[in-house]
């Protein structure tokens, strides 16, 4: 496994807002800073090159371009085996009519969405009757990681504590669920259900579960990092839902959506969702680091790591 400019970390967790980095650092006991880099780790960084089980960093700011730059820098510095983008996102609620009642279905605040596919929905070629998407190459979340870990955390095997144990009282009155599905990446907060662009992408990606502002940037950085056969970085995107994003529907008249702005809901739920993301990442990291990486002629290997 190659070494980065600062050293090597097996897992690198990237967060965005203050609540997210605080929550992830707390969950991972990442109290030690590497130099003055703003990168934190649960063990004192020593040796040359430094070898760490996990590092936690924060994006320079929100949205995909800064996320791409931050992920690129993290990879250059640490050449991690796995990158995890962790934080909060909007959960897409889609309307269904049942017994003359409208039911909004989808992930609820506090739930976790693990991305199995990322759609980038910004900038389209707008023509009179339609908006055509343009594309650029990205790495999708690594399906083997999603399969190996997300399912087990969603439905833990017999005798294993659920991932959310210790999160405290559940504001929704039930334990948070884990969903595995598609995520839409955009460049602005999805806050207005009657905004044309938001309606368009929610209709187009009709199976998507959440909307975020960074996953396409990280996916792009992973793709760009794949420069030679000796380095095969993998990645996951973990999103705790902090608010609803209402998908357009003919069942509801304009102006009659449950919330015309979700900023209050987001403010209220962020305090729970961010620690939920941190706790989920902790359990994910435990699984990823539970086995040592074997040494080879070109790689000194890496020890297993566990939190005590």
């Amino acid at each position, binding site marked *: 496994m190659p070494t980065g400019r600062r050293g090597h970390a097996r897992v690198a967790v990237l967060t965005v807002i203050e609540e997210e980095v605080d929550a992830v650092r707390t969950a991972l006991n990442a109290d030690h800073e590497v130099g003055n880099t703003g990168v934190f780790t649960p063990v004192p960084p020593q040796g040359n090159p430094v070898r760490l089980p996990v590092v936690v960093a924060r994006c320079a700011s929100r949205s995909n371009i800064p996320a791409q730059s931050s992920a690129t820098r993290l990879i250059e510095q640490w050449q991690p085996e796995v990158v995890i983008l962790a934080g909060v996102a909007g959960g897409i609620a889609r309307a269904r009519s049942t017994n003359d009642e409208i039911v909004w279905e989808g992930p609820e605040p506090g739930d976790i969405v693990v991305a199995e596919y990322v759609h980038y929905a910004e900038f389209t070629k707008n023509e009179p009757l339609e908006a055509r998407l*343009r594309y650029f190459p990205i790495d999708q979340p690594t399906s083997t990681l999603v399969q190996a870990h997300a399912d087990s955390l969603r439905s833990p095997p017999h005798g294993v504590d659920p991932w959310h144990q210790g999160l405290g009282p559940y504001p929704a009155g039930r334990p948070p669920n884990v969903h595995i599905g598609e995520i839409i990446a955009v460049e602005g907060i999805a806050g207005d259900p009657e905004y044309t662009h938001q309606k368009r992408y929610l209709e187009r990606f009709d199976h998507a579960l959440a909307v975020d502002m960074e996953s396409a940037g990280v996916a792009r950085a992973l793709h760009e990092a794949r420069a030679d056969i000796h380095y095969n970085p993998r990645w996951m995107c973990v999103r705790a839902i902090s608010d609803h994003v209402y998908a357009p529907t003919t069942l509801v008249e304009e102006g009659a959506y449950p919330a015309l702005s979700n900023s209050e809901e987001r403010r209220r739920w962020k305090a729970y969702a961010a620690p939920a993301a941190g706790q989920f990442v902790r359990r994910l990291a435990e699984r990823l680091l539970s086995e040592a990486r074997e040494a080879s002629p070109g790689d000194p290997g890496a020890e297993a790591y566990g939190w005590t």
Partner: protein
Amino acid sequence: MSPEPETAREELPPFAYEVLLCSDFEGVLEASGTTASREAVVQAALERGRVLLQARGGAGKSTTLKRIAEAARSEGVRVVELWAVEWAKHAAQPPGEPSSADLLNAMAHASSPPTAMSELADGQPSLLLVDGLNELQTSHAHAILAAANTLATRYPQLGIMIADRLARRSIDEISWQLATLTPVPLWQVRDVLGASYREETETLFSNPYFLERARRDPMSAATHRSFFSAQLKIADHQLAKLARAVNLAYRERGNRLVNLNWLGEQVGSSIVDRLMEAGVLEMVEEPDARFVHHLISDFLAALDIADDPSRWNRAEFDVLTFKASSFDALPMVLDEVLNDNADLFARRLYDWNFYAAAYVIAEDEERSHRITTELKTAVLAMLAERRFDQLQATARQVSDALRLQKSAIAKALLTASDLETIIDIVEGLDISEPWFRQWRQLFGIRSGRDARADEVSLIRDADSVLGWTAANVLKRLTLDSDVVASLATLLEDVSPTIRWRAAHVLGAARTASAAEALDHCARGDEDLWVRYGAIRSLIEMAAGCGPEMRAQIFERLGQIAHEINETSQLTNEVARALTVTAPPANWSEDAGLLLECLWADAGSIEMQDRWRDVSARLRLSEPVGA
């Protein structure tokens, strides 16, 4: 790599200038940073991955790269060297510009020793040294910086160091380590010059290029002309022919390479042989050669226009500077013009590019003091006014230009808190020159009243300083419909300079008729810089008008997205101009109407990324919902 003259005489002690590592570009401009040994620079390059060494022409960049190469090799670091011009040449895909991917693929053909990008993946600590970024036009230089960034990202064992001119580049200052060079210390300047030492030329000779010339031949040190006549024994008429040929090569090739066979036809093979034997001209790749220092070739190209004021125009300045990419030749024109014409030359420069005028003024302060104090003051005051421009890139660039100046007035203008203070500073100066008093009266007009027709007519003044001052002053005033109509008429003037000035003023108007006139100009004017000014003014107008008109402006600009994407000067200006101080509500959303069109029209993912980057920057500058 381009050898510095000082390396030719190994027995002489090296000049004791040093590398300074700077935390930002202001530090580079002000030569404020931490002194670093060669070994420390190698270490910084390997740790940060990217070092940009920026200094004036002749400051010792190439020699420094060579010294750093030696230090790296002695520590077991593999060194690969590239000359930026050669790299860009191998990567170029005529008629387009080289992309980052083209450059990466061309590395093996241009590097010494020849090294393919994939060879850097072997994990061995390596240092890639790129010299001569300052010799490339801006778009090529940006492509090389992007390619270097990609290499540093992909190969964590690779450090890259690039030598460049003193200009702010669009780079991520978190990733890049900026560096500059100190001047040669005063004790060494005195030591080398001995009895020839003069305090007034101390700054000039603290530049290693000029000091080395003095060390070789104190009698011919101060002018390049005497170098050719005294050392190379080239007669004036032969020198004129050589200058003509080099200028022609600049015009036709857009770089500093010259075909030796062609040069022989122009000036005679004996002159070419003499230049080759003296080591002034060296072969790059048969039949192309170059002068051993770009300042020598810049001198020759400059000499060709120096004695002919009719050639001091935008077309010739574009040739001499590779479309404003490198200003080093301009002070050399000034060196050669008659004393009486020094101000005229600076005024003509100002009409073309006010940063160029500021650069020449800064150089003149350190060399011959031939531009009058009155003109310097007027130019610097006009620059200072633009520190408060709503377009942030302009405000930053004029601040950079003022930081280059060493005079007390420049420092006062740089720190003035507002336009009123700048006017007060200018009004407090004890200068009685008649033209300056006239200019000062115009410059001193304060905002808050309607513009008058006689003030509009002043923008037609043949004197660039008065004409542009009138344009700037009009922007402070209220423009009623009659004034807007007069300005719109001036957009049809035969002189592109007058059209540009009118377009500049109309950016301050907020009416549909002004927007329509600018839109017409942005689409159809035959002159690039007029279109440039009109587009820029439309963006400025959008930042100051209501939401409905703003949307219309951006939609109409979107209709010329292809023209903007196709012309690097327009692309760069739109990308820069959209970042404004105190943007109106929903600025990023409205600008998105234009950005979507630019993005959709982009011919490459790199260009798409550029517009995504601009869009992200605009969004980030706005408050985010809770």
